[in-house]
């Protein structure tokens, strides 16, 4: 039952997406990997890996793009989760172990998606290489954020609601102030070529299909 609850948490975390741009490439930091690493810090690996596989497979039903893409995404997340959990099972879940698991997660994820991109989308290897720095960036970022959240839960669980409240307010700045009514939504980004909100940063990888 606890495993199912964790699986639902992972599915929900996968809905929280922040786009990270690095050079010409860009990736989504989904809350999935962050929540996975937080769980790996707190819970037995055997439970986490089952929940992660359930959540990865179920994510097929919570995406809104073409079915082939959903299946490829789900398969790559499953492989990446199992690889990361396997690493933690073998080498422990201290910070170094989690960071290594994060690198493995993103490498497996990127490699399996890369195969699909090159074969199905006819993406050139040069275009694929553009995506790599942002993937590598996430590989470092996600385990640290996950470790931080897990550490907070272990040592100061009462601060957790504050963290979630902060995330809720912080991730939707335009609408927190303007409630979506104003065309000129604040002045969060005033330099040219930047955008008003996080989801608008994503003209190509549009997660609304």
């Amino acid at each position, binding site marked *: 039952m606890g495993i199912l609850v964790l699986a639902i948490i992972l599915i*929900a975390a996968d809905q929280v997406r922040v786009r990270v741009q690095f050079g010409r490439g860009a990736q989504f930091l989904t809350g999935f990997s962050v929540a996975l690493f937080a769980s790996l810090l707190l819970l037995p690996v055997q439970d986490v890996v089952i929940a992660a596989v359930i959540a990865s497979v179920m994510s097929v039903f919570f995406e809104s793009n073409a079915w082939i893409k959903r299946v490829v995404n789900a398969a790559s997340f499953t492989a990446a989760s199992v690889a990361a959990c396997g690493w933690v099972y073998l080498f422990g879940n201290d910070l170094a172990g989690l960071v290594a698991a994060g690198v493995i997660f993103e490498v497996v994820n990127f490699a399996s998606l890369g195969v699909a991109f090159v074969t199905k989308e006819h993406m050139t290897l040069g275009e694929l290489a553009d995506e790599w720095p942002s993937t590598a960036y996430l590989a470092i970022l996600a385990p640290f954020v996950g470790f931080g959240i897990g550490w907070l839960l272990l040592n100061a669980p009462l601060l957790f609601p504050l963290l979630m409240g902060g995330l809720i307010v912080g991730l939707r700045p335009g609408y927190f102030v303007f409630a979506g009514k104003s065309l000129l939504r604040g002045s969060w980004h005033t330099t040219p070529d930047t955008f008003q909100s996080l989801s608008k940063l994503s003209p190509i990888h549009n997660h609304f299909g």
Partner: protein
Amino acid sequence: MDDKDIDKVLSSLSQDIKKDRLWAFRTTIALAIIAVLTVVLLVWGF
């Protein structure tokens, strides 16, 4: 820029706003679910 261009700009803008609101809504719901279920796991003693 004639009226049609302005209409186009406005409609794409309103489309973007709709997507943003959907994204903000989904993100908020997801974070709320994570928060509640994490507390459930904590109280449960994992």
